[in-house]
């Protein structure tokens, strides 16, 4: 738990390993059983599909979700590689504790050789950076937590 508090980096390291090399945590049977055990098997009534409330993170570690710090998540609107700075020899766009304003560039997500600047939709304070520099992200992955 103490590790989780350090900017969520350790949690992310674990996620990164899972995500980059999702070379089957278990056998097919294990994967299938886990999936079937996790879905509802209702009492035969036609249920409307439950909308996914939280962004999907396929690579969440098995040991249960960490205590999420307060604040709102800024999630990735695209698929690509996350960079914290405009180029290797420039400073990070933002750090934990920074105040950000609407329209401010927070990070770059690179895809197909295009560097896309991800901008803040509202002002606030960065309380957590959820992704390591240079890591692939998918749609919906948490990038920052903002108060």
């Amino acid at each position: 738990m103490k590790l989780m508090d350090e900017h969520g980096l350790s949690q992310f390291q674990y996620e990164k390993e899972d995500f980059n090399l999702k070379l089957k945590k278990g056998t097919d049977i294990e994967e299938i059983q886990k999936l079937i055990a996790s879905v509802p098997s209702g009492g035969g009534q036609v249920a409307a599909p439950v909308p996914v409330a939280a962004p999907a993170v396929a690579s969440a570690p098995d040991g249960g979700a960490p205590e999420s710090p307060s604040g709102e998540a800024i999630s990735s609107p695209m698929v690509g590689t996350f960079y914290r700075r405009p180029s290797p020899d420039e400073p990070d766009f933002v750090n934990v504790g920074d105040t950000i304003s609407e329209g401010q560039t927070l990070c770059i997500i690179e895809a197909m050789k295009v560097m896309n600047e991800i901008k803040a939709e509202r002002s606030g304070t960065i309380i957590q950076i959820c992704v390591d520099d240079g890591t692939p992200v998918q749609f919906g992955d948490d990038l920052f937590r903002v108060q």
Partner: protein
Amino acid sequence: MFKRVLVANRGEIALRIIRACRELGVESVAVYSEADIDSMHVQLADDSVCIGPGPSKESYLKPDRIIAAAEITGADSIHPGYGFLSENARFAEICESCNITFIGPSAEVIRTMGDKNTARATATANGVPVTPGSDGIVADAVEGLKVAKEVGFPVMIKATAGGGGRGMRPAMSEDEFKSQFQAASKEAEACFNNGDCYIEKLVLEPHHIEFQVLADDHGNYFHLGERDCSMQRRNQKIIEECPSPLISHEMRERMGEASVRLIESISYRNAGTIEYLVNADATDFYFMEMNTRIQVEHPVTEEVMGCELIKEQIRIASGEPVSSHVLGVEPRGHSIECRINAEDPYNNFTPSPGTIDLWYAPGGKGVRVDSHVYSGYTVPPHYDSMIAKLIVTASSREVAIARMKRALSEFTIRGIKTTIPFQQEIIDHPDFIAGKYDIAWVAKYLNEKKGE
């Protein structure tokens, strides 16, 4: 051979492709929308990437996100499945420019054959018969009417950019031509961003017979026989079979030759299907269109011809020749497929998404179920309603029908409505048993039932 194939699709076909990859020793990457996080194909792929929220336009139809997913997972190839981006020339082009192999023909060929009107012209240029019709796009309803009068009513007004049965309207007489033309054009504009239409003579009570073709980089161009897909409701296929109970051996030869001639002329690559209309007497055939991708109903060909089409697609795309046992293969037996949809057939086929709390699929000799569904799975509302394909194969058509009857009666899907009871009615019907049905059959049957 590829190292890692990204599957740019969902549902049963994504699972099908991943299974083929597994058997070939190739890694697979699944891309999925948030609504598909519990889909079986996501669990069985070697890696997976979420590419957007439920609606297809924001996920499965986003070329940039799919390519980005290929980049971050190191995929060297993409299998587009059917539907979605599988016949999108632009997407194939982007793959090519990013050095990712698109498993299918080239962007140029997709573009040529994807334009229905150009495809028609290509067929004509190669001595493949087409239904009489306009010489290309008609500028407007006035010009269209002129052509229709020349060709003779009834006619079909078809969008050149159309597909999947959309953007087409029949006009039985002069009176309704203008309104039907406008309706077809509007639908085409809305669905495909292109309202251009051409006119074809409407073949009454036709049969839809399509030929499976394959072509590789080693000079092999051949066909794998036909599929009869005449059992349709509103231009959507619901039952398919191989071989066709209708056409003669001689007709099969003629149609097969025409199909091979056509793909040779455009230097086609990979798998494709050429769709024909055959008249009621089965004396004439007319080229309708070509699908430059794998078809939903490919399993019936696989079963009768003893081949694996998805694997051949992957082999061809990676530069290998078609498997030697597939060249010169002879058909054996008969295969029938039912597309099981999450729809209520007794309530106008209203879609029936929801949670399936009990799923028991049939088994036994000659029974194959291609499906991503399992007990507890929730069918999302965003996509087409097909949840499974039930394919039976037997030594004869008679036994195949008995087998399909048995398999349908065992198939238990509790929690949603499905088309199974309706397909049971069709399989049991004397017309189907006699092999005497055409594209208009289902509409007629439903009308008769309403009248009762």
